[in-house]
Structure formats: C-alpha cells, structure tokens
C-alpha cells in the first residue's frame, strides 16, 4: 500500500476543508411545521385508505372478526383461481382456510417459491393518505422474498394499525427501523412507457388487502 491517505481520510478532509468553521446549528433547528398528526375521524381515515387502495387497483375484502379471516383468504384465492399459498411458518394456523395447499416457508429456495402463485402475510401498519402498507419482515410478515416472487400477495391489515399520515405510520414502525422494511402501495407497476401507470411488472401483479379487527 502507498503512504498516501486513504480515500476515506481524503474525502472526510475535503469535506472539513469545505464546510464553514462555525457549525453550531443543531438538527433540532430544522423546521418541521408540516402535518405530523392526522385530523380525520377514524371512520373517515379508513374510508380514505379504501379509496387509495382502490385507486391502485388493489382488491379489498372486509371481515368483522378474526374468525372471518379463513373465509376471506379462501375468497381471495378463489377469485384468482389459485390453489396453493405460501406462508411464514409463524403465521397463525387458525386464520388459514381449509381445502388449499398451504406451503410453509421452511427455508424454501427461491426457485421453489417462484412456482407458488400466492402468498398470505400480515403487516405492521398502513398510511391512509398514500394507501401504503408497511411490512416489517420476519414473523408472520415473512422474509422479503416470499412477498416478492408469488404473483398474488394477500395481506391482512388490522384496522387499528391504520394511520392517516405517512409520519404517523413511520413513527409506528420506528422501533423496527433496523429490520428489513418494505412499503407497498398497490401492485407492481411502471410509468416507463409514455408515463402511463401500467399495473404489473416484476413484483406481485395482484394485491388483496383484507381488513379485520376493530377500528
């Protein structure tokens, strides 16, 4: 190795030579006057989410009680003519429907996953204003690949996890900020051809959101 300073040292010293000597400003001085707390009533907030999800052409199913989940998952699979579904092994067995081929992700290879048409997971939070679902990977939300390779993602969303704003939803998952996180807003899409949003490129082309639980 040469005696010249490392790239790291050189870049850092270039920065230090460039920035002003007085650097007393604190991050607390950043003006955060934008909306950080929602103002909508719970019912309106939920309606907003439904509107956004529909705008992205997601399928939406509603159940009142957890006991309705197996039937709703079955309906989502039947609607898409699918017979097998991938789940994380920690996914609650009581929520799974009968009569389908349930494939637990016991360290499946990506090739094995690729052949399965659907996956069902839970999620951590949602922001209504943008129609976004937040997955914190691991547990019943699965590792990243299982929600990526199947063409149909069925996601269970607890109504009490719906927030109005992006800042609220991110605050709700902030304690998991070092874990792998994926945010999903509708099915995979592209605007690369003449700037028109077209559904479905590489990620799941179908997204079903099943709402359950109390508001």
């Amino acid at each position, binding site marked *: 190795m040469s005696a010249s300073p*490392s*790239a*790291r040292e*050189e*870049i*850092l010293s*270039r*920065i230090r030579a*460039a*920035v002003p000597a007085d*650097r007393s*400003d604190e*991050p607390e*001085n*950043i*003006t*955060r*006057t*934008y*909306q*950080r707390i929602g103002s909508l009533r719970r019912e309106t907030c939920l309606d907003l989410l439904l509107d956004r999800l529909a705008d*992205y052409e997601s399928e939406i199913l509603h159940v009142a009680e957890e006991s309705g989940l197996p039937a709703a998952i079955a309906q989502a699979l039947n609607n898409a003519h699918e017979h097998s579904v991938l789940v994380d092994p920690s996914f609650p067995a009581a929520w799974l429907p009968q009569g389908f081929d349930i494939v637990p992700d016991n360290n499946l290879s990506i090739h094995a996953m690729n052949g399965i048409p659907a996956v069902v997971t839970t999620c951590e939070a949602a922001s209504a*204003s*943008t*129609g976004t679902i937040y997955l914190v*990977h*691991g547990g019943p939300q699965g*590792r*990243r*690949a299982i929600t*990526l390779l199947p063409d149909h993602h069925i996601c269970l969303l607890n109504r009490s996890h719906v927030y109005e704003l*992006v800042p609220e939803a*991110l*605050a709700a998952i*902030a304690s998991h*900020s*070092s*874990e*792998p*996180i*994926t*945010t999903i*807003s*509708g*099915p*995979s*899409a*592209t*605007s*690369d*051809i*003449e*700037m028109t*949003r*077209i559904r*479905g*490129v*590489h*990620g*799941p082309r179908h997204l079903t959101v099943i709402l359950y639980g109390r508001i």
Partner: protein
Amino acid sequence: MSIRVGKTSKAPDFPIAAVTALENAQLRQNVHHATEVIRNKRALRVRETADWQELRNAAHDIKQHTLKHLDHYLIEFERNCQQAGGTVHWARDADEANAIAIGLIQQYGGEEVIKVKTMTSDEVQMNVALEKAGITPHETDLADMIVQLGEDEPSHIVVPALHKNRFEIRDIFRKKMSLPHLTAEPEALAGAARQYLRERFMRVKIGISGANFAIAETGSVCVVESEGNGRMCVTLPDVLITLVGIEKIIPTFQDLEVFLQLLPRSATGERMNPYNSLWTGVRKGDGPQAFHVILLDNGRTKLMHSEMERETLDCIRCGACLNACPVYRETGGHAYGSIYSGPIGAILSPQLNSLQYSRTLPFASSLCGACYEVCPVKINIPEILIHLRGRVVRDDQKTISGTFSQMNLAMKGAALVFGSRRRYEAAQRLGRMGQKLFEKNGQLEHLPGMAGGWTRFRDLRPLPKQAFRDWWKAREAARPSPESEPRP
C-alpha cells in the same frame, strides 16, 4: 484523479446538440407528450397536499444541515452499517468506485450482475467498466432495459427512455428478445420484460443498486421504485453492492417522512410509488448475506465550499425540473450531452466535473424559474445558473480571444452605456439613426453580427421615435410647477 460524469470528458455545445434534437419530430412529440402527462399528474398530487410548502422547507433544512455536517453523518452511517454486518468502501472518483465494484465481483467469482436503476452508476459509467472487465451487467428497470437493449443513452433522470414511444419500444423488444409477434400494448411490453428478466433474477448471484437515501442513525439504505425489480435486486442475490453518492445521507429514520412524501409526488405524480425497500447491513436468512456500500465523492466535495453551490447537492433526483423546463421539453435530454439533463443537469454536471466540461450548459435555460418552483427541496436553480454563467464569463475574460469576443465587447459596451445617463441617451439617438438601415415594413428583420442570431427566428420592433424618457421630459415640461398644485 478522474472525475467523470457520463461517457465523455466534454459535453457537446448545447446550441449545436439542441439543433439535432429539434429536427427530430418524433422525439419532440414523445418528450412533449410524456412531460405533459407527468406535469399534470404532479400538479394534481401537489395541489391535494395541504402542507406541501412546509414539507419543502423541512426537506431543504434537512439537506442543508446534513451537508454542513456531512463528515459526522458519513462516519455515523459507516459505523452503523458495519455494525449490522455491511462493509463500507470509500471512492474518491469514478475510476476508484468502478475498481472497487469490479474487485468485489471478482472476489465473489461473478461473471454477471443484475442492476437496479442507479443514476450514480451511469455517472461513473460502471457498465462500460464492468464490460471491459468481462462482467455482463443486466439492467432491470424497464426504461433502463429499453436504453440498454436499444444501445441508446438515457434522456431523463427518472424515465430514461422517455424519448421512446410504445411502438419504438416494441420494435426494440421484438428484435432483442426474439418476440416477433409482440404488440405495442404497454401491458404486453411490461409482460415481456417480466418474462425476460425473471430467469435472470433467479440466476444471477450479485446485485448492484444505488440508494435514494442512506440513513446515518441506523446505517440503513432505502431504494424507491415501482416495478419490483429493485426488490428483486436487493433481495434475491447472495451479494449486494450499493453505490451511494455521499450527498444521499440523511440523519434519521424520521427524516424519511419528509422525503417519502415529496419524492413520488414530484417524480411520477403518484401519492406513493409502489415499493420502497429499506435494509440494514445483513439479515441472517433474509436477503444477500454479503453487503457492500461504496460511498462516492466524484466531485461532490468541490461543491461544498460555497453555500450557493452546495445547494446543488440537495437534489433527490425526482426529475420535476426537467418536466417543467421549457427548454428540456423542446430538446429532450440527449442535447445536454450529460447523464444529468434538464435544469439540474445544467448546474450539476459542470460543477461535478468542471466548467471545462461544458461552458454552454449554464446558458441552456430561459431563467423562467419553473424549475425552482417545482423543486421539492427548493434548490434555487436559476440563481445557480446565473452564478455559473458568471464563472464562465470571468474565465473567458482571462483569455485574449475571450476578451475580444463579440459577446464580451458588446457586454462591456453595454455596461459603459448603461452606466451613464448621457451615454445612454446618446446611444438611443445613435440606435434610432442606425436602425433605419435594417428597418423593413416597420420591423427589424435581419440584424448584423451576434444580434442576427435573435432576428434569424424573430422580428424585432424598432426603437420608437420618442423614447419613454423623452416623453417624460416633455410631459414634465408641460405640467404646471409642483408648488402651484393643490395638495390632497
């Protein structure tokens, strides 16, 4: 040291390159259509966001704060990323970044890589370097694929194939994917890309990505995308290499709440893009088990000395200024001759590289201010353009040919004339006499010399017989003296 911004060491002169673009009617039509669609969508999404200006202010503050303390935040990012199992490399310039990437790929025994759209990799021309080293890069973003398969150059920061319409894309795919019966329906084209790439996603063991944001507090990286190719590239391979411009650092996870609201609305006019991926180092049993970050300078630290130039580094690459720019909308991106086009390209490329790279790009603007108005992080692009024009002129004035150039003499003359009332009025009289030689049908149709550039495309109204100040003088003289006027 070799700072590189795109393919060539010098961009072509903009006025000359622009002519080629302007003569291509199909390209102009495509660019017009696409920018019109995206502008309208953006406007709609911005209008419904009540706190848009507050978000812009916060973004600007966060970026300025971060750049001022960049050494601190880079070290914090490095520490947290390494603690989570990542490895951080530093690259002073394009060649160093490419050498690190190639070294890593060879170390892991890779002969091909899958790539998710990264402008920074285009900036350092990584694909060219990889191919030279015998490594095949597969671009996986739909538009990047269109550019790569069509052996073309990107023309837009967000939508690199914006200059191609569906029929041109169909023709490229038919030829390169051996699909002779492919139709031009956008759904069919997207489906073809899905099929073509799925096998590569499953097979290739090394992924290369850029980063939209790198979070100091957690050491996490965030990639913002739509198609899912990004998720594929950062999840499925065994090894992931992420190239990050040092200005992509943000201090905290919380700061995402600002940028994730601004970026999609500005870039594609969506409330939120379909996918954002966030990961921190290596997660056992989930995703790549080897993760390398390359922190890239490549000229960025040069922009940090002055407060005004530093603002250029606030850019989050949304492309809104391109879509809003009346110059870009006519010429498209190729005329800029740089990987970064449009208003942001006109200020970023010459600063990252050097003014020698392009002395015409700072002039490729009408200074109308539309770029500043739409910028989600409030970069005052017109002000920086004027500042750079000033630098080009001062530079020119140091040379003999620059000192005696028509433009410099004319400007010096103008400064002299505008500096004194007597000289100004004399010049007006002179002008009124001189213009008689060129007046035709009450218009000036052909002026000589440099002014001919203006009249080549437009008629000019001649100076009026009576100037405003003559009229004013006459009016004042005719009025009764102020003392005799009744006060209100």
